[in-house]
């Protein structure tokens, strides 16, 4: 490693991070679909010439490091790489992100004919074909049902965009115009990254950038090491359950070992891969583990290859966290959230003062689709829930947690666009687990069908299990889907993973997301806090009395 003044290293690092953020700004500005533009379900990154991630602007932790496999696949593919070539894939088993709707794009960057790095981005496309609109049903039983599988192919060359892959994707998507716009936006973003990477090389010289990259990676490794030194050595185990699909519930088990500056996670004991799309491919497992470690150990660790390479992860083949191709994967986020819970649970034993109780820890993903004025529509939404109560304070109400952080669609926007009406969008009282520090509240969203009918599909978890409390804190409430609440024909849907539920005009679909666990003995909660919660309607009188022993005279 060439010696280099540490400030230059950081200035180069800052330029690369700024460049990745600039790529993200271009991608969001240029994209066509709400998913990318409004919900920022996309990430951008720059790699060195060895394919090590140097700078990433991730809007969702599930994208952390998830493009790394793409570079490996590109190198392994034996494809000829010429300057100006751009590649895409969405194959989760071969470097293409973590499920089919995520299209990954990469442009190898050359300066003076030599490879100097890679500029890449990943974006969630709102429909990539498959058996359900939105390509995101939780109950598909093979990758082939989940949508178009795009192998690693050239998307553009020095002669411009290759029409064939674009046409394939367009023809297979229910929303072809969006696909075209979004893929061209992805292209614009990787080109900005390429330009910036070249500028940095021109300015500092190749050797300096190389040396700086090595230092930047080493810096992340050192920060992880420094944080690990504060964790007592030992092996910490935890296990949690997924909602059952067919047969018994799947267990997520982890043994986390800290040994000095080393950390290793072994998922031995985790249940077998699922027949439905809740399987987690390697990049998604890695991103989840990186997320949990970063959040607990040192939120400021720069997410780069130096950090990732220092974490050892073993997952049993054929398990839900290491499935065999072509197991379906689209609803992997629910399992990722449970993996995050398991890793956090293990860390709670190691550093109890830093780890919150379980959050709602699911991605309550729902889609309504149908026809309106002769146009096909797909309205996807993610409903947030409670954030786990923290060791020193209450959990956050109605937030996205762990591996995602996507925003909702404003009611006024969705009612403009779709024949749907939102009757209720409110917090659910008592959904947060009781505790010295109360768990965050889940959310109720009632959607009424105005048109000739609509089809409802969803994947969600924590409808059969509850988010756990810690240190005497109570569990949060589970989520559920209910059709026509309060009417004679009210019925609850069988679970969180459903598709093709037919709704008629006037029907209401109620989505309830889970709350979160409480932290510490509820009896130790101050009367003033209970009174505030009561006054604000966050807990009911009965819960205040039964769970907190609150009397109105207090």
């Amino acid at each position: 490693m060439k010696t280099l003044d540490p400030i230059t290293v950081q200035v180069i690092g800052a330029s690369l991070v700024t460049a990745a953020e600039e790529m993200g700004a271009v991608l969001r500005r240029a994209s066509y679909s709400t998913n990318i533009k409004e919900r920022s379900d996309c990430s951008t990154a720059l790699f060195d010439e060895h394919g090590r991630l140097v700078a990433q602007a991730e809007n969702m932790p599930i994208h952390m490091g998830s493009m790394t496999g793409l570079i490996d696949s590109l190198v392994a593919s034996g494809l000829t790489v010429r300057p100006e070539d751009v590649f895409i894939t969405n194959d989760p088993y071969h470097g293409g992100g973590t499920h089919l709707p995520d299209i990954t794009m990469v442009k190898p960057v050359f300066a003076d004919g030599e490879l100097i790095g890679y500029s890449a981005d990943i974006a969630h496309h709102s429909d990539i074909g498959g058996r359900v609109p939105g390509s995101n049903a939780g109950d598909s039983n093979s990758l082939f049902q989940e949508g178009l599988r795009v192998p690693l192919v050239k998307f553009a060359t020095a002669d411009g965009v290759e029409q064939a892959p674009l046409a394939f994707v367009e023809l297979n998507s229910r929303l072809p115009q969006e696909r075209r716009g979004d893929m061209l936006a992805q292209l614009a973003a990787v080109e900005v990254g390429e330009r910036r990477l070249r500028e940095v090389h021109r300015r500092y010289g190749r050797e300096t950038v190389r040396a700086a990259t090595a230092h930047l990676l080493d810096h992340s490794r050192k920060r992880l090491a420094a944080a690990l030194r504060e964790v007592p050595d030992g092996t910490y185990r935890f296990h949690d359950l997924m909602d059952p699909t067919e047969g018994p519930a799947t267990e997520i088990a982890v043994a986390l070992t800290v040994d000095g500056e080393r950390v290793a996670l072994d998922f031995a004991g985790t249940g077998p891969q699922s027949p439905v799309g809740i399987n987690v491919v390697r990049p998604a497992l890695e991103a989840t583990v990186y997320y949990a470690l970063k959040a607990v150990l040192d939120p400021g660790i720069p997410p780069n290859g130096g950090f990732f390479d220092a974490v050892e992860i073993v997952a049993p083949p054929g398990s839900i966290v290491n499935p065999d191709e072509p197991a379906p994967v689209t609803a992997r986020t629910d399992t990722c959230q449970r993996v995050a819970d398991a890793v956090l649970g293990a860390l709670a034993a190691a550093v109890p003062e830093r780890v919150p109780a379980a959050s709602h820890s699911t991605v309550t993903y729902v889609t309504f689709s149908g026809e309106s004025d002769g146009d096909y529509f797909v309205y996807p939404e993610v409903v947030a829930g409670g954030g786990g109560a923290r060791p020193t304070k209450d959990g956050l109400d109605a937030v996205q947690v762990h591996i995602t952080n996507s925003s909702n669609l404003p009611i006024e926007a969705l009612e403009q666009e779709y024949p749907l009406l939102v009757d209720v969008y409110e917090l659910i009282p008592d959904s947060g687990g009781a505790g010295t520090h109360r768990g965050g509240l889940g959310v109720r969203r009632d959607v009424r069908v105005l048109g000739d009918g609509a089809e409802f599909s969803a994947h969600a978890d924590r409808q059969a299990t509850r988010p756990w409390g810690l240190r005497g804190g109570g569990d949060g409430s589970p989520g559920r889907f209910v059709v026509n609440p309060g009417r004679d024909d009210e019925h609850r849907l069988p679970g969180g993973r459903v598709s093709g539920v037919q709704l008629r005009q006037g029907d209401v679909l109620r989505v309830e997301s889970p709350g979160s666990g409480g932290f510490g003995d509820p009896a130790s909660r101050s009367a003033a806090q209970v009174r505030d919660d009561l006054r604000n309607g966050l807990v009911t009188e009965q819960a205040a009395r039964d769970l907190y022993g609150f009397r109105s005279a207090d």
Partner: protein
Amino acid sequence: MLRIGVDVGGTFTDVTALDAATGRFHIHKLPSTTDDQSVAVAEGIREVLRHAGAEPGDVEYLGHGTTVATNTVLESDGALTTLVTTAGLRDVLEIGRQQRPDLYDMDADKAPPLVPRALVHAVVERMSAEGKVLVPLDEDDVAAALDGVGQAEPEAVAVCFLHSYRNADHELEVADRLRSALPRVYVCASAEVAPVFREFERFSTTVVNAYVGPKINRYMSRLAERIRATGVPVEPRVIGSSGGMMSLDSVSRHPVTTLLSGPSAGVVAASHVAGQAGLSNLITFDMGGTSTDVCLVRDGGALVSSQRRINHRPVRTPSLDIHTVGAGGGSVARVDPGGALEVGPGSAGSQPGPAAYGRGGTEPTVTDANVLRGWLNPEFILGGELAVDYAAAERAVDGVARAMEADRSVAARGIGRIAAANMAGAVRKVSVEAGEDPRGYALVAFGGAGPLHAVEVAREVGMSTVLVPPNPGTLCALGLLVTDIRTEFAKAVLEDADVRDPDKLNEMLHEVHASARGWLASEAPSGADTKITGEAKLRYARQNFELSVPLPQRVIDAARFDSDAVAGIVEAFHEQHTRSYGFAHRDARVQIVEVQLTAAAVVDKPELPAVPEGTEPGDALLGRRRVDFDETGPVDTPVYDRTGLRAGTVLPGPAIVEQLDTTTVVTPAATARVDRHGNLVIEVEQR
């Protein structure tokens, strides 16, 4: 006759008076009075009059920039506010966009809603997205809400119903009834404050407006009273967030529009000064003690955004698109657990301030590094008012140096470079988000620390020109003298841009136009040159993002679209989409999301005074000192007195220029030239 501008900042109140007859400026600075800003405002006016040898009756114009609204939100010190909203949606503010405040820091908290949940009253009513009444206003609920609001004894009420931007009948009815029932309570409806779509942002804006309303109103009436007491015969005008002057009455009705009052005056002044120097594409760079404000000005006009947040709360009224980074002279440097040097966002603030200030500060700041590098005077700063504690600065920086295992000089240089890299990132960000290349722009530096770092930031970003105005520390007050009387009227439209049927569009355009005309009739001075301009925000149907396209003047003048005009703006939208994103969908349905009209009365802008000419620095040379630059290491560098510099003088870098309110650093890779107005125009060599 005298024109006066008074800008109130956190520490100082700056007063600038312009004598219209002589063209002379009088500048005065006094400590701000934080309990009641109007005390220092009145005092400053008296003093500047004395200074200028003028009488109160000579004052023909008084402009004011205030931080009352901002501070009220930042310090959570606003009115007890209640909210009346649509049943079923009482948690719009609680849920927001459902995003957590930090991706990785699980301890981070959301900004609590300004209205506690217990003070939210839900009323059964419902409009459709087309503005049709789906559920009529429930009489019993309204009565109960009126009752409930009354019992809470609030100072302010916000009324926010779904789709009120489309049909405000329910909202206005409830607001009216609240006003009758509670005459002393400040009441506002979302359709009055920001009739635009997307409920969380509109509700949030309305609630912020209600929350700051009573306090702003009290302040404005005290201010008017104290100014009357000085004998000044004119009512002050206040600069709003979008860089336009408004009457006290306008401010009382829309206090939320003053959230960015102070910073916007700086941007307006910077554009004015740069404009007279022949520069119309610029990025303003206002660096103070705790933060740096950056704003892009294109073709002489600052970019305006409606997507701003204050203290994490969205405010959807047009504001200058000022981007703030937590990097200032007081930003603290530390070494992270991985051994890397970080600067900010923590700040030593004004108390204790940097170690070099000798007020007990021990943490190393950007200012301390600048003292050790010779960028700042090692003996006295703030024009000699403050003796530098050099040893304290050394001790502070040594702490970082030890942790870095480096020399003191390496640490000091490192702090400067990292701070510059952070600020360069902010400059790039405002450019990129505007779709512009910063290399075509000039950097205009002001604030106490802007001129210190502007040249290295410009070089880092690849900008070749830096402009430092004559009085960078009081530029905001100057801005108040050159700001037009102006405000914006925005209205959600959400109609297809259908050439066959412009009637629906015209209905809304007509409404906004009437508001704009009415405002001008009451605000514009008689005989002033007035104009209404406007833009439309368009999108492809189902796209959730809009692009602005200017409205043809003939459409605005007639307050009417015809088929050609609609076709014209649709074509302009396709072109804008192609420019911004590289493609257009000419066969897709195009929607007009919003129409925004700007009503303005132009004020006379003073010519900046010329400075005497002379090619030699002569007496301006104060001496020389060793100054440490990245490119060269420590070099013997001339130090000049800004006030002694003549127009036409060229100062090749390295050079230091000192003045009362700031220090300008001309690095070895730059050359400064004094222009006829006394601006330092610095050409920066590119790497």
